[in-house]
């Protein structure tokens, strides 16, 4: 005998909100990477301009979570869900921030000579994007198993980062004239690596939500 609950509506609203935020972060990342590889300063500017919307979304979700906590006193599964959403929103916002940081580098890079194969930054960006997409999917489906799979892929990004790091340092030593450009690209790689870590956080929250297991700092 299920009872109609206002709480259910509010939980659905929260879920929609966080998925929208996730979508925005995904889009920002993709756009920033496209701007980087296609040397498109306009696209980069659009990413930066859109960031305010993303910030507002996060604040709104934050407020909604507090309302649900205080007005509905959720318990058990509902409690874990709202808790996860409340922690996930700032993580998604930070992912978007790192996308902005990448976008900020684009106009500067466009003043410099192009690096012929962007080392493997493009590949890193693709992995990061797909990890984020899969993490959000796992969250929507309450799928802890899928979330754990995504966490494993973080190793790929970390490996790529190390490799790019070495490559770029080598290049900076060999061709000091383009050192600034190389340094910027190194930072872009760093941002992507951080995004990988954040996506891991999202997956940990999904596992907590689905199984009440806390796997932070344990892998």
């Amino acid at each position, binding site marked *: 005998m299920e009872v109609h609950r206002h709480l259910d509506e509010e939980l659905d609203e929260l879920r929609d909100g966080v998925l929208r935020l996730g979508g925005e972060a995904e889009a920002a990342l993709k756009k920033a990477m496209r701007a980087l590889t296609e040397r498109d300063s306009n696209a980069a500017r659009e990413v930066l301009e859109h960031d305010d919307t993303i910030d507002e979304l996060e604040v709104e979700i934050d407020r909604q979570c507090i309302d649900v906590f205080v007005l509905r006193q*959720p318990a058990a599964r509902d409690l874990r869900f709202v808790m996860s959403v409340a922690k996930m929103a700032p993580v998604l916002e930070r992912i978007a921030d790192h996308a902005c940081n990448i976008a900020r580098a684009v106009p500067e890079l466009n003043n410099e000579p192009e690096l012929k194969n962007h080392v493997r930054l493009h590949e890193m960006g693709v992995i990061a994007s797909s990890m984020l997409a899969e993490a959000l999917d796992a969250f929507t489906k309450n799928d802890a198993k899928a979330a754990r799979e995504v966490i494993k892929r973080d190793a790929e990004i970390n490996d790529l980062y190390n490799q790019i790091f070495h490559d770029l340092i080598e290049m900076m030593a060999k061709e000091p004239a383009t050192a600034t450009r190389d340094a910027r690209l190194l930072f872009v790689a760093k941002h992507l690596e951080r995004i990988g870590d954040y996506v891991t956080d999202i997956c940990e929250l999904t596992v907590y939500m689905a199984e009440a297991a806390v796997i932070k700092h344990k892998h």
Partner: protein
Amino acid sequence: MSTPGQIVAPKFEVARRPVLPPRETKISVADLNFFYGRSQALHNITLNIPEQMVMAFIGPSGCGKTTFLRTLNRMNDVIPGTRVQGRVMMDNQDIYAPGADVVELRRKVGMVFQKSNPFPKSIFDNVAYGLRINRLTSNKSELEDRVATALQDAALWSEVKDRLKSSALGLSGGQQQRLCIARALAIRPEVILMDEPASALDPIATSKIEELIFDLKKQYTIVIVTHNMQQAARVSDLTAFFLLGKLIEVNATEKMFTAPDEKLTEDYITGRFG
């Protein structure tokens, strides 16, 4: 300035969630079945109640939690036509064994009721009643001491110490309930059963009772029936969920309310049914 190898104490206390300490079992119930005439109200209840903790019984109306509570001090005996099967062991004795001393049981297991029920006597006489009929004190000053202690333990002393001879019925609802608690405490039971003790009280009186329970559990084993889940969460260390006369789950309160084991429990706690 520490030297290498020296162990330095951390600069801050790492907050740890208190873990439930291991405790002896005070009351152990095995396969309890209870009947009102032909209809069965409790089905195969098996449960251990540890000492010096608060255990809350939750569940929808009619789930049998109050019936079960009352089997613990045999208060159901006064209702004609009731039948008990199974064992309830306290201090290694079955309280339902033939020849068991019910009066002695009720001295060890006190009860506080949903609606406060002070006797139409003075405040002093109310608290002294249990002491007098059980002849627990030998002279007047000892009686007065015990009454004063009980009233202090029930956090009522300061409000009534100047009017002990006045009628108990002149107290407010919250005070009357604390008086009933003092009355139960005076005979120094080992277990205190509380049947929705705050359901008839306003929020401030309720929180006073809850604070009281928190203090009392240092000395007594407390079992509290409540239909208010937030209260169970605030007050208890362990929670037992009943449904239709069956015990569905017993768990540490914190776990019960964040990640219960049974789906039925979760459905009830999240309000998905009645």
